[in-house]
Protein backbone atom coordinates (compact mmCIF):
# COMPACT_ATOMS: atom_id res chain seq x y z
CA UNK A 1 0.00 0.00 0.00
CA UNK A 2 2.67 2.44 1.13
CA UNK A 3 5.02 1.25 -1.58
CA UNK A 4 2.29 1.63 -4.15
CA UNK A 5 1.58 5.17 -3.10
CA UNK A 6 5.26 5.99 -3.06
CA UNK A 7 5.60 4.61 -6.58
CA UNK A 8 2.78 6.82 -7.77
CA UNK A 9 4.34 9.80 -6.08
CA UNK A 10 7.72 9.08 -7.65
CA UNK A 11 6.10 9.13 -11.05
CA UNK A 12 3.99 12.16 -10.37
CA UNK A 13 6.80 14.27 -8.91
CA UNK A 14 9.58 12.79 -10.99
CA UNK A 15 11.27 16.15 -11.58
CA UNK A 16 11.28 16.95 -7.87
CA UNK A 17 12.91 13.64 -7.00
CA UNK A 18 15.52 14.14 -9.70
CA UNK A 19 16.33 17.54 -8.24
CA UNK A 20 16.68 15.97 -4.82
CA UNK A 21 19.06 13.24 -5.99
CA UNK A 22 22.31 15.21 -5.54
CA UNK A 23 20.98 16.66 -2.29
CA UNK A 24 20.20 13.27 -0.81
CA UNK A 25 23.53 11.95 -2.06
CA UNK A 26 25.27 14.84 -0.35
CA UNK A 27 23.58 14.18 2.98
CA UNK A 28 24.21 10.45 2.84
CA UNK A 29 27.87 10.73 1.91
CA UNK A 30 28.97 13.68 3.97
CA UNK A 31 26.59 13.57 6.91
CA UNK A 32 25.25 10.10 7.50
CA UNK A 33 28.23 7.99 6.41
CA UNK A 34 30.65 9.38 9.02
CA UNK A 35 28.00 9.43 11.74
CA UNK A 36 28.89 5.97 13.01
CA UNK A 37 32.13 7.55 14.20
CA UNK A 38 30.21 9.07 17.11
CA UNK A 39 30.74 5.74 18.88
CA UNK A 40 34.01 7.15 20.17
CA UNK A 41 31.88 8.82 22.85
CA UNK A 42 31.63 5.32 24.31
CA UNK A 43 35.26 4.44 23.76
CA UNK A 44 38.66 5.49 24.98
CA UNK A 45 39.71 6.72 21.58
CA UNK A 46 43.34 7.07 20.70
CA UNK A 47 44.17 8.34 17.20
CA UNK A 48 47.05 5.92 16.77
CA UNK A 49 44.77 2.92 17.34
CA UNK A 50 41.92 4.17 15.21
CA UNK A 51 38.19 4.21 15.88
CA UNK A 52 37.54 0.50 15.74
CA UNK A 53 40.53 -0.70 17.72
CA UNK A 54 40.15 1.69 20.61
CA UNK A 55 38.71 0.00 23.69
CA UNK A 56 35.08 0.38 24.79
CA UNK A 57 34.47 2.20 28.04
CA UNK A 58 30.68 2.33 28.12
CA UNK A 59 29.31 5.49 29.69
CA UNK A 60 32.53 6.49 31.46
CA UNK A 61 33.02 9.63 29.39
CA UNK A 62 29.49 10.80 30.18
CA UNK A 63 29.95 9.93 33.84
CA UNK A 64 33.14 12.01 33.99
CA UNK A 65 31.14 14.95 32.72
CA UNK A 66 28.03 14.50 34.87
CA UNK A 67 30.02 13.82 38.02
CA UNK A 68 32.11 16.94 37.72
CA UNK A 69 31.83 19.21 40.74
CA UNK A 70 30.86 22.03 38.41
CA UNK A 71 28.37 20.20 36.20
CA UNK A 72 25.27 22.07 37.37
CA UNK A 73 26.99 25.40 37.44
CA UNK A 74 28.13 25.22 33.82
CA UNK A 75 24.72 23.96 32.67
CA UNK A 76 23.03 26.82 34.51
CA UNK A 77 25.45 29.41 33.12
CA UNK A 78 25.14 28.08 29.59
CA UNK A 79 21.36 28.14 29.70
CA UNK A 80 21.17 31.58 31.28
CA UNK A 81 23.55 33.20 28.81
CA UNK A 82 21.65 31.58 25.93
CA UNK A 83 18.36 32.60 27.40
CA UNK A 84 19.31 36.25 27.79
CA UNK A 85 20.77 36.20 24.33
CA UNK A 86 17.47 34.85 23.07
CA UNK A 87 15.31 37.34 24.94
CA UNK A 88 17.36 40.42 24.05
CA UNK A 89 19.50 39.35 21.14
CA UNK A 90 16.78 37.78 19.05
CA UNK A 91 14.35 40.72 18.76
CA UNK A 92 17.08 43.35 18.37
CA UNK A 93 17.87 42.74 14.68
CA UNK A 94 14.14 42.52 13.88
CA UNK A 95 13.57 45.92 15.42
CA UNK A 96 16.59 47.28 13.58
CA UNK A 97 15.28 45.93 10.29
CA UNK A 98 11.88 47.54 10.91
CA UNK A 99 13.50 50.86 11.77
CA UNK A 100 15.74 50.77 8.71
CA UNK A 101 12.67 49.91 6.67
CA UNK A 102 11.02 53.14 7.82
CA UNK A 103 13.88 55.31 6.57
CA UNK A 104 12.85 57.20 3.45
CA UNK A 105 16.22 58.57 2.46
CA UNK A 106 17.82 55.83 0.31
CA UNK A 107 21.44 56.87 0.88
CA UNK A 108 21.04 57.05 4.64
CA UNK A 109 19.37 53.67 4.59
CA UNK A 110 22.29 52.11 2.74
CA UNK A 111 24.76 53.83 4.99
CA UNK A 112 23.17 52.49 8.17
CA UNK A 113 22.87 49.00 6.73
CA UNK A 114 26.48 48.87 5.61
CA UNK A 115 27.94 50.35 8.73
CA UNK A 116 25.94 48.30 11.21
CA UNK A 117 27.14 45.05 9.72
CA UNK A 118 30.84 45.93 9.96
CA UNK A 119 31.57 44.68 13.50
CA UNK A 120 30.59 41.17 12.44
CA UNK A 121 33.83 40.99 10.46
CA UNK A 122 36.18 42.08 13.20
CA UNK A 123 37.70 39.03 14.86
CA UNK A 124 36.59 38.06 18.36
CA UNK A 125 40.05 38.66 19.78
CA UNK A 126 39.94 42.29 18.70
CA UNK A 127 36.34 42.82 19.77
CA UNK A 128 37.09 41.40 23.21
CA UNK A 129 40.06 43.76 23.41
CA UNK A 130 37.59 46.64 23.03
CA UNK A 131 35.26 45.21 25.63
CA UNK A 132 38.08 44.88 28.15
CA UNK A 133 39.18 48.43 27.43
CA UNK A 134 35.72 50.01 27.58
CA UNK A 135 34.77 48.26 30.83
CA UNK A 136 38.07 48.92 32.63
CA UNK A 137 38.22 51.28 35.58
CA UNK A 138 39.40 54.12 33.38
CA UNK A 139 37.21 53.10 30.45
CA UNK A 140 34.43 54.96 28.75
CA UNK A 141 31.58 53.11 30.45
CA UNK A 142 32.98 53.96 33.87
CA UNK A 143 33.29 57.57 32.78
CA UNK A 144 29.57 57.58 32.04
CA UNK A 145 28.81 55.89 35.35
CA UNK A 146 30.88 58.39 37.31
CA UNK A 147 29.33 61.26 35.37
CA UNK A 148 25.98 60.18 36.78
CA UNK A 149 27.43 60.00 40.25
CA UNK A 150 28.38 56.31 40.39
CA UNK A 151 31.74 54.96 41.49
CA UNK A 152 34.30 53.51 39.13
CA UNK A 153 34.96 49.77 39.32
CA UNK A 154 36.43 47.00 37.19
CA UNK A 155 33.15 45.96 35.59
CA UNK A 156 34.42 42.74 34.06
CA UNK A 157 35.76 41.59 37.41
CA UNK A 158 32.28 41.48 38.91
CA UNK A 159 30.47 38.20 38.34
CA UNK A 160 27.15 40.04 38.48
CA UNK A 161 27.95 41.99 35.32
CA UNK A 162 29.27 39.22 33.14
CA UNK A 163 26.09 38.16 31.39
CA UNK A 164 25.05 41.74 30.72
CA UNK A 165 28.42 42.55 29.19
CA UNK A 166 28.50 39.33 27.19
CA UNK A 167 24.99 39.61 25.79
CA UNK A 168 25.03 43.33 25.05
CA UNK A 169 28.37 43.16 23.28
CA UNK A 170 27.05 40.20 21.34
CA UNK A 171 24.10 42.30 20.18
CA UNK A 172 26.40 45.19 19.33
CA UNK A 173 28.57 42.94 17.16
CA UNK A 174 25.84 40.99 15.41
CA UNK A 175 22.76 43.23 15.21
CA UNK A 176 23.45 44.55 11.72
CA UNK A 177 24.54 41.25 10.29
CA UNK A 178 21.53 39.42 11.72
CA UNK A 179 19.10 42.02 10.41
CA UNK A 180 20.06 41.31 6.80
CA UNK A 181 17.81 38.30 6.50
CA UNK A 182 14.84 40.32 7.78
CA UNK A 183 15.59 43.15 5.37
CA UNK A 184 15.57 40.63 2.56
CA UNK A 185 12.26 39.25 3.77
CA UNK A 186 10.83 42.77 3.99
CA UNK A 187 11.71 43.42 0.38
CA UNK A 188 9.60 40.45 -0.61
CA UNK A 189 6.38 41.96 0.71
CA UNK A 190 3.96 42.82 -2.06
CA UNK A 191 3.71 46.64 -2.32
CA UNK A 192 0.05 46.33 -3.25
CA UNK A 193 -0.65 45.34 0.34
CA UNK A 194 0.67 48.69 1.52
CA UNK A 195 -1.40 50.50 -1.08
CA UNK A 196 -4.48 48.69 0.08
CA UNK A 197 -3.74 49.53 3.71
CA UNK A 198 -3.24 53.19 2.85
CA UNK A 199 -6.57 53.30 1.06
CA UNK A 200 -8.09 51.91 4.24
CA UNK A 201 -6.57 54.91 5.99
CA UNK A 202 -3.88 53.07 7.96
CA UNK A 203 -0.99 55.20 9.22
CA UNK A 204 2.61 54.03 9.33
CA UNK A 205 2.20 52.34 12.68
CA UNK A 206 -0.89 50.44 11.51
CA UNK A 207 0.87 49.49 8.27
CA UNK A 208 3.78 48.09 10.22
CA UNK A 209 1.45 46.15 12.45
CA UNK A 210 -0.90 44.84 9.76
CA UNK A 211 1.32 44.47 6.69
CA UNK A 212 5.01 44.51 7.52
CA UNK A 213 5.07 42.24 10.56
CA UNK A 214 2.76 39.57 9.14
CA UNK A 215 4.91 39.64 6.02
CA UNK A 216 7.97 38.48 7.91
CA UNK A 217 6.34 36.39 10.62
CA UNK A 218 7.15 33.06 9.03
CA UNK A 219 10.88 33.80 8.81
CA UNK A 220 10.87 35.14 12.38
CA UNK A 221 9.21 32.01 13.70
CA UNK A 222 11.50 29.65 11.79
CA UNK A 223 14.60 31.47 13.00
CA UNK A 224 13.23 31.39 16.53
CA UNK A 225 12.71 27.63 16.31
CA UNK A 226 16.25 27.18 14.99
CA UNK A 227 17.60 29.35 17.78
CA UNK A 228 15.81 27.26 20.39
CA UNK A 229 17.75 24.34 19.04
CA UNK A 230 21.03 25.93 20.03
CA UNK A 231 20.26 26.88 23.62
CA UNK A 232 23.03 24.64 24.94
CA UNK A 233 25.63 26.08 22.59
CA UNK A 234 27.69 28.97 23.82
CA UNK A 235 31.03 29.23 22.05
CA UNK A 236 34.16 29.21 24.18
CA UNK A 237 36.26 31.76 22.34
CA UNK A 238 34.59 34.92 23.55
CA UNK A 239 34.01 33.49 27.01
CA UNK A 240 37.63 32.61 27.63
CA UNK A 241 38.77 35.99 26.39
CA UNK A 242 36.49 37.78 28.83
CA UNK A 243 36.22 35.66 31.95
CA UNK A 244 38.61 35.22 34.85
CA UNK A 245 38.48 33.06 37.98
CA UNK A 246 36.68 36.00 39.64
CA UNK A 247 33.73 35.57 37.28
CA UNK A 248 33.69 31.78 36.78
CA UNK A 249 30.60 31.75 38.98
CA UNK A 250 28.47 33.23 36.19
CA UNK A 251 30.74 32.95 33.17
CA UNK A 252 32.00 29.39 33.03
CA UNK A 253 29.98 27.49 30.40
CA UNK A 254 30.14 23.98 28.99
CA UNK A 255 32.46 24.85 26.15
CA UNK A 256 34.90 26.86 28.25
CA UNK A 257 34.99 24.10 30.86
CA UNK A 258 35.75 21.50 28.21
CA UNK A 259 38.31 23.84 26.69
CA UNK A 260 40.18 24.14 29.98
CA UNK A 261 40.15 20.40 30.37
CA UNK A 262 41.46 19.96 26.88
CA UNK A 263 44.27 22.53 26.74
CA UNK A 264 47.06 20.65 25.10
CA UNK A 265 45.31 17.32 25.36
CA UNK A 266 42.93 16.26 22.65
CA UNK A 267 40.52 13.99 24.46
CA UNK A 268 38.29 13.28 21.49
CA UNK A 269 36.16 10.76 23.35
CA UNK A 270 35.29 13.16 26.13
CA UNK A 271 34.57 16.04 23.77
CA UNK A 272 32.38 13.81 21.63
CA UNK A 273 30.46 12.64 24.67
CA UNK A 274 29.81 16.22 25.81
CA UNK A 275 28.85 17.18 22.27
CA UNK A 276 26.43 14.28 22.07
CA UNK A 277 24.82 15.33 25.33
CA UNK A 278 24.39 18.89 24.06
CA UNK A 279 23.00 17.66 20.75
CA UNK A 280 20.38 15.47 22.37
CA UNK A 281 19.10 18.31 24.55
CA UNK A 282 19.20 20.77 21.68
CA UNK A 283 17.40 18.37 19.37
CA UNK A 284 14.67 17.78 21.91
CA UNK A 285 14.27 21.54 22.36
CA UNK A 286 14.03 22.14 18.63
CA UNK A 287 11.62 19.27 18.19
CA UNK A 288 9.32 20.68 20.87
CA UNK A 289 9.57 24.21 19.54
CA UNK A 290 8.70 23.00 16.07
CA UNK A 291 5.66 21.02 17.29
CA UNK A 292 4.49 23.91 19.40
CA UNK A 293 4.79 26.37 16.55
CA UNK A 294 3.07 24.03 14.12
CA UNK A 295 0.07 23.94 16.40
CA UNK A 296 0.05 27.62 17.37
CA UNK A 297 1.11 29.45 14.23
CA UNK A 298 1.20 26.92 11.45
CA UNK A 299 4.84 27.78 10.76
CA UNK A 300 7.08 24.74 10.84
CA UNK A 301 10.35 23.33 9.60
CA UNK A 302 8.75 20.00 8.80
Amino acid at each position, binding site marked *: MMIRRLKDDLVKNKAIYIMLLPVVAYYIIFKYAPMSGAVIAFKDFSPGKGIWHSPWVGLDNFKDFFESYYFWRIIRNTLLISFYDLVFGFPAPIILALLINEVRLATFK*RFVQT*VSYLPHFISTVVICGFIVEFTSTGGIINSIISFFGGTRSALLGDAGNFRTIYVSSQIWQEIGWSSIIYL*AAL*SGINPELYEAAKIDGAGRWKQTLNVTLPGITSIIVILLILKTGSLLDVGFEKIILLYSPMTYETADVISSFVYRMGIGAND*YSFTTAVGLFQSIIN*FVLLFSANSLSRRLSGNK*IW
Partner: protein
Amino acid sequence: MRLSLPERAFSVFNGLLLMLLAVGTLYPFYHVLMASFSDSKQLIAHSGVLLRPLGFQLDAYQAVLDNPNILNGYRNTIVIVVTGTLINLIMTTVAAYALSRTFMLKNTLLMMIVFTMFFSGGLIPNFLLVNNFLHMGGTYWALILPSAINSWNLIVMITSMRSIPESLIESARMDGAGEFRVLLRIVVPLSMPVISVMLLYYGVAHWNSWFQALLYLRDRETFPLQLILREILIFKNTESMSIGAGVGDQEAIGESIRYATIMVATLPILLVYPFLQKYFVKGVMVGAIKE
Protein backbone atom coordinates in the same frame (compact mmCIF):
# COMPACT_ATOMS: atom_id res chain seq x y z
CA MET B 1 2.82 62.95 0.64
CA ARG B 2 2.36 64.87 3.86
CA LEU B 3 3.23 63.24 7.13
CA SER B 4 1.32 63.80 10.32
CA LEU B 5 3.12 65.36 13.26
CA PRO B 6 3.69 62.19 15.26
CA GLU B 7 4.94 60.51 12.11
CA ARG B 8 7.38 63.30 11.49
CA ALA B 9 8.54 63.15 15.08
CA PHE B 10 9.08 59.45 14.66
CA SER B 11 11.13 60.00 11.50
CA VAL B 12 13.45 62.38 13.29
CA PHE B 13 13.77 60.12 16.30
CA ASN B 14 14.38 57.11 14.09
CA GLY B 15 17.04 58.94 12.13
CA LEU B 16 18.87 59.97 15.29
CA LEU B 17 18.69 56.50 16.76
CA LEU B 18 20.07 54.86 13.66
CA MET B 19 22.79 57.48 13.41
CA LEU B 20 23.82 56.67 16.96
CA LEU B 21 23.87 52.99 16.16
CA ALA B 22 25.92 53.63 13.03
CA VAL B 23 28.53 55.53 15.02
CA GLY B 24 28.63 52.81 17.67
CA THR B 25 29.06 50.03 15.18
CA LEU B 26 31.52 51.90 12.99
CA TYR B 27 33.91 52.43 15.86
CA PRO B 28 35.66 49.03 16.07
CA PHE B 29 36.38 49.11 12.38
CA TYR B 30 37.63 52.66 12.57
CA HIS B 31 39.82 51.76 15.53
CA VAL B 32 41.43 48.90 13.63
CA LEU B 33 42.04 51.19 10.66
CA MET B 34 43.68 53.87 12.78
CA ALA B 35 45.75 51.31 14.67
CA SER B 36 47.02 49.89 11.40
CA PHE B 37 48.48 53.29 10.52
CA SER B 38 49.99 53.79 13.96
CA ASP B 39 53.52 53.34 15.18
CA SER B 40 53.85 50.00 16.99
CA LYS B 41 55.83 51.34 19.90
CA GLN B 42 53.31 54.07 20.62
CA LEU B 43 50.48 51.68 20.05
CA ILE B 44 51.59 49.26 22.77
CA ALA B 45 51.72 52.11 25.23
CA HIS B 46 48.26 53.35 24.31
CA SER B 47 45.00 52.38 25.92
CA GLY B 48 41.53 53.72 25.33
CA VAL B 49 39.77 55.26 22.38
CA LEU B 50 41.83 55.83 19.26
CA LEU B 51 40.59 58.69 17.11
CA ARG B 52 43.62 59.27 14.91
CA PRO B 53 46.76 57.25 14.15
CA LEU B 54 49.62 57.54 16.64
CA GLY B 55 52.57 58.57 14.51
CA PHE B 56 51.41 57.88 10.98
CA GLN B 57 53.23 55.12 9.06
CA LEU B 58 52.53 52.67 6.27
CA ASP B 59 55.28 50.19 7.18
CA ALA B 60 52.76 47.77 8.61
CA TYR B 61 51.07 47.41 5.25
CA GLN B 62 54.46 47.09 3.60
CA ALA B 63 55.34 44.27 6.00
CA VAL B 64 52.03 42.53 5.43
CA LEU B 65 52.40 42.66 1.67
CA ASP B 66 55.99 41.43 1.95
CA ASN B 67 54.86 38.34 3.81
CA PRO B 68 55.32 35.55 1.26
CA ASN B 69 52.08 33.87 2.24
CA ILE B 70 49.64 36.74 2.13
CA LEU B 71 49.35 37.36 -1.59
CA ASN B 72 49.16 33.65 -2.22
CA GLY B 73 46.58 33.42 0.51
CA TYR B 74 44.51 36.05 -1.24
CA ARG B 75 44.49 34.16 -4.50
CA ASN B 76 43.69 30.88 -2.77
CA THR B 77 40.86 32.40 -0.78
CA ILE B 78 39.28 33.90 -3.86
CA VAL B 79 39.39 30.56 -5.65
CA ILE B 80 37.76 28.87 -2.67
CA VAL B 81 35.13 31.57 -2.17
CA VAL B 82 34.08 31.76 -5.80
CA THR B 83 33.96 28.03 -6.50
CA GLY B 84 32.56 27.17 -3.10
CA THR B 85 29.82 29.78 -3.13
CA LEU B 86 28.78 28.86 -6.64
CA ILE B 87 28.36 25.22 -5.64
CA ASN B 88 26.57 26.27 -2.44
CA LEU B 89 24.10 28.45 -4.28
CA ILE B 90 23.21 25.88 -6.92
CA MET B 91 22.84 23.05 -4.42
CA THR B 92 20.90 25.09 -1.88
CA THR B 93 18.56 26.70 -4.37
CA VAL B 94 17.68 23.42 -6.04
CA ALA B 95 17.26 21.69 -2.69
CA ALA B 96 15.18 24.51 -1.26
CA TYR B 97 12.88 24.64 -4.25
CA ALA B 98 12.30 20.90 -4.25
CA LEU B 99 11.69 20.86 -0.52
CA SER B 100 9.23 23.74 -0.69
CA ARG B 101 6.97 21.69 -3.05
CA THR B 102 4.55 19.07 -1.82
CA PHE B 103 5.45 15.44 -2.23
CA MET B 104 5.24 12.33 -0.17
CA LEU B 105 8.72 12.00 1.34
CA LYS B 106 9.06 15.68 2.11
CA ASN B 107 8.66 15.62 5.86
CA THR B 108 10.88 12.56 6.22
CA LEU B 109 13.62 14.25 4.26
CA LEU B 110 13.28 17.48 6.22
CA MET B 111 13.53 15.56 9.48
CA MET B 112 16.61 13.78 8.25
CA ILE B 113 18.20 17.06 7.27
CA VAL B 114 17.44 18.70 10.62
CA PHE B 115 18.85 15.63 12.35
CA THR B 116 22.25 16.24 10.76
CA MET B 117 22.32 19.72 12.24
CA PHE B 118 22.65 18.14 15.64
CA PHE B 119 24.33 14.80 15.19
CA SER B 120 27.52 14.26 13.32
CA GLY B 121 30.40 11.86 13.37
CA GLY B 122 32.78 14.54 14.54
CA LEU B 123 36.25 15.47 13.49
CA ILE B 124 38.00 12.15 13.02
CA PRO B 125 35.41 10.21 10.96
CA ASN B 126 34.87 13.19 8.71
CA PHE B 127 38.56 13.46 8.15
CA LEU B 128 38.89 9.77 7.38
CA LEU B 129 36.03 10.03 4.90
CA VAL B 130 37.40 13.02 3.05
CA ASN B 131 41.08 12.19 3.26
CA ASN B 132 41.32 8.41 3.19
CA PHE B 133 38.22 7.36 1.23
CA LEU B 134 37.54 10.28 -1.08
CA HIS B 135 41.24 11.20 -1.37
CA MET B 136 40.53 14.90 -1.33
CA GLY B 137 43.24 15.72 1.23
CA GLY B 138 45.46 18.55 0.04
CA THR B 139 42.91 19.83 -2.49
CA TYR B 140 40.31 22.56 -2.22
CA TRP B 141 37.55 20.01 -2.78
CA ALA B 142 38.09 18.96 0.81
CA LEU B 143 37.12 22.47 1.89
CA ILE B 144 34.25 22.93 -0.56
CA LEU B 145 32.32 19.70 -0.99
CA PRO B 146 31.77 18.66 2.65
CA SER B 147 30.07 22.02 3.21
CA ALA B 148 28.16 22.15 -0.07
CA ILE B 149 24.88 22.69 1.77
CA ASN B 150 24.45 24.42 5.08
CA SER B 151 21.24 23.02 6.56
CA TRP B 152 20.49 26.21 8.47
CA ASN B 153 20.69 28.25 5.26
CA LEU B 154 18.66 25.62 3.45
CA ILE B 155 15.81 25.92 5.96
CA VAL B 156 15.82 29.70 5.75
CA MET B 157 15.60 29.48 1.99
CA ILE B 158 12.82 26.92 2.09
CA THR B 159 10.88 29.23 4.40
CA SER B 160 11.34 32.11 2.03
CA MET B 161 10.28 30.08 -1.01
CA ARG B 162 7.17 28.86 0.76
CA SER B 163 5.92 32.44 0.83
CA ILE B 164 5.88 32.70 -2.97
CA PRO B 165 2.20 32.77 -3.98
CA GLU B 166 1.16 29.35 -5.23
CA SER B 167 -0.98 31.06 -7.92
CA LEU B 168 2.11 32.33 -9.75
CA ILE B 169 3.55 28.84 -9.96
CA GLU B 170 0.24 27.31 -10.96
CA SER B 171 -0.27 29.76 -13.78
CA ALA B 172 3.22 29.03 -15.12
CA ARG B 173 2.43 25.36 -15.00
CA MET B 174 -0.76 25.97 -16.92
CA ASP B 175 1.46 27.39 -19.66
CA GLY B 176 3.20 24.02 -19.74
CA ALA B 177 6.32 24.85 -17.72
CA GLY B 178 8.09 21.92 -16.03
CA GLU B 179 9.68 22.07 -12.55
CA PHE B 180 13.06 23.21 -13.79
CA ARG B 181 11.47 25.93 -15.85
CA VAL B 182 9.34 27.11 -12.94
CA LEU B 183 12.42 27.21 -10.76
CA LEU B 184 14.48 29.21 -13.22
CA ARG B 185 11.80 31.53 -14.57
CA ILE B 186 9.57 32.17 -11.59
CA VAL B 187 11.12 31.13 -8.30
CA VAL B 188 14.70 32.28 -8.78
CA PRO B 189 13.80 35.82 -9.90
CA LEU B 190 11.31 36.13 -7.06
CA SER B 191 13.87 34.84 -4.58
CA MET B 192 16.64 37.22 -5.48
CA PRO B 193 16.60 38.90 -2.05
CA VAL B 194 17.06 35.61 -0.22
CA ILE B 195 19.52 34.35 -2.82
CA SER B 196 21.65 37.43 -2.33
CA VAL B 197 21.52 36.86 1.42
CA MET B 198 22.69 33.31 0.81
CA LEU B 199 25.44 34.59 -1.45
CA LEU B 200 26.56 36.78 1.41
CA TYR B 201 26.26 34.06 4.07
CA TYR B 202 28.09 31.43 2.07
CA GLY B 203 30.64 33.83 0.66
CA VAL B 204 31.50 35.22 4.09
CA ALA B 205 31.59 31.73 5.58
CA HIS B 206 34.11 30.59 2.98
CA TRP B 207 36.06 33.78 3.36
CA ASN B 208 36.32 33.38 7.11
CA SER B 209 36.81 29.66 7.37
CA TRP B 210 40.18 28.28 8.33
CA PHE B 211 39.59 25.11 10.32
CA GLN B 212 39.01 22.78 7.37
CA ALA B 213 42.06 24.26 5.67
CA LEU B 214 44.05 23.59 8.81
CA LEU B 215 43.01 19.95 8.72
CA TYR B 216 43.40 19.21 5.05
CA LEU B 217 46.12 21.47 3.68
CA ARG B 218 49.82 20.90 4.33
CA ASP B 219 51.45 23.01 1.67
CA ARG B 220 51.64 26.57 2.87
CA GLU B 221 51.48 27.81 -0.70
CA THR B 222 47.90 26.62 -0.80
CA PHE B 223 46.81 28.11 2.55
CA PRO B 224 43.86 30.50 2.41
CA LEU B 225 44.25 34.00 3.79
CA GLN B 226 42.41 33.38 7.05
CA LEU B 227 44.77 30.62 8.08
CA ILE B 228 47.70 32.98 7.67
CA LEU B 229 45.82 35.78 9.42
CA ARG B 230 44.98 33.50 12.29
CA GLU B 231 48.60 32.50 12.74
CA ILE B 232 49.61 36.13 12.89
CA LEU B 233 46.83 37.01 15.35
CA ILE B 234 47.44 34.12 17.71
CA PHE B 235 51.20 34.28 17.45
CA LYS B 236 51.52 36.16 20.69
CA ASN B 237 48.89 34.08 22.39
CA THR B 238 50.58 30.78 21.64
CA GLU B 239 53.75 32.25 22.96
CA SER B 240 52.24 33.13 26.29
CA MET B 241 50.42 29.80 26.47
CA SER B 242 53.70 27.94 26.51
CA ILE B 243 55.05 29.82 29.51
CA GLY B 244 57.62 27.73 31.28
CA ALA B 245 58.78 26.10 28.08
CA GLY B 246 61.15 29.02 27.86
CA VAL B 247 59.81 30.15 24.52
CA GLY B 248 59.17 33.71 25.59
CA ASP B 249 62.10 34.90 23.64
CA GLN B 250 60.54 35.45 20.29
CA GLU B 251 60.41 39.02 19.22
CA ALA B 252 56.86 40.25 19.64
CA ILE B 253 55.42 41.03 16.25
CA GLY B 254 54.63 44.64 15.62
CA GLU B 255 51.28 45.56 17.10
CA SER B 256 50.29 47.59 14.05
CA ILE B 257 51.10 44.70 11.70
CA ARG B 258 48.39 42.73 13.40
CA TYR B 259 45.83 45.42 12.64
CA ALA B 260 47.06 45.93 9.09
CA THR B 261 46.61 42.21 8.52
CA ILE B 262 43.03 42.43 9.71
CA MET B 263 42.34 45.29 7.34
CA VAL B 264 43.91 43.53 4.40
CA ALA B 265 42.01 40.36 5.17
CA THR B 266 38.63 42.02 5.72
CA LEU B 267 38.25 44.85 3.22
CA PRO B 268 37.46 42.81 0.08
CA ILE B 269 34.62 40.89 1.66
CA LEU B 270 33.13 44.09 3.06
CA LEU B 271 32.80 45.42 -0.45
CA VAL B 272 30.45 42.63 -1.50
CA TYR B 273 27.47 43.81 0.52
CA PRO B 274 26.92 47.19 -1.12
CA PHE B 275 26.69 45.38 -4.45
CA LEU B 276 24.01 43.11 -3.10
CA GLN B 277 21.96 45.83 -1.50
CA LYS B 278 19.99 46.66 -4.60
CA TYR B 279 18.21 43.33 -4.26
CA PHE B 280 16.84 44.50 -0.94
CA VAL B 281 14.77 47.31 -2.37
CA LYS B 282 11.19 46.81 -1.42
CA GLY B 283 8.92 45.18 -3.93
CA VAL B 284 11.15 45.57 -6.96
CA MET B 285 11.06 41.95 -7.90
CA VAL B 286 7.39 41.29 -7.47
CA GLY B 287 6.70 44.25 -9.70
CA ALA B 288 9.15 43.08 -12.32
CA ILE B 289 7.54 39.67 -12.55
CA LYS B 290 4.09 41.04 -13.05
CA GLU B 291 5.01 43.08 -16.08
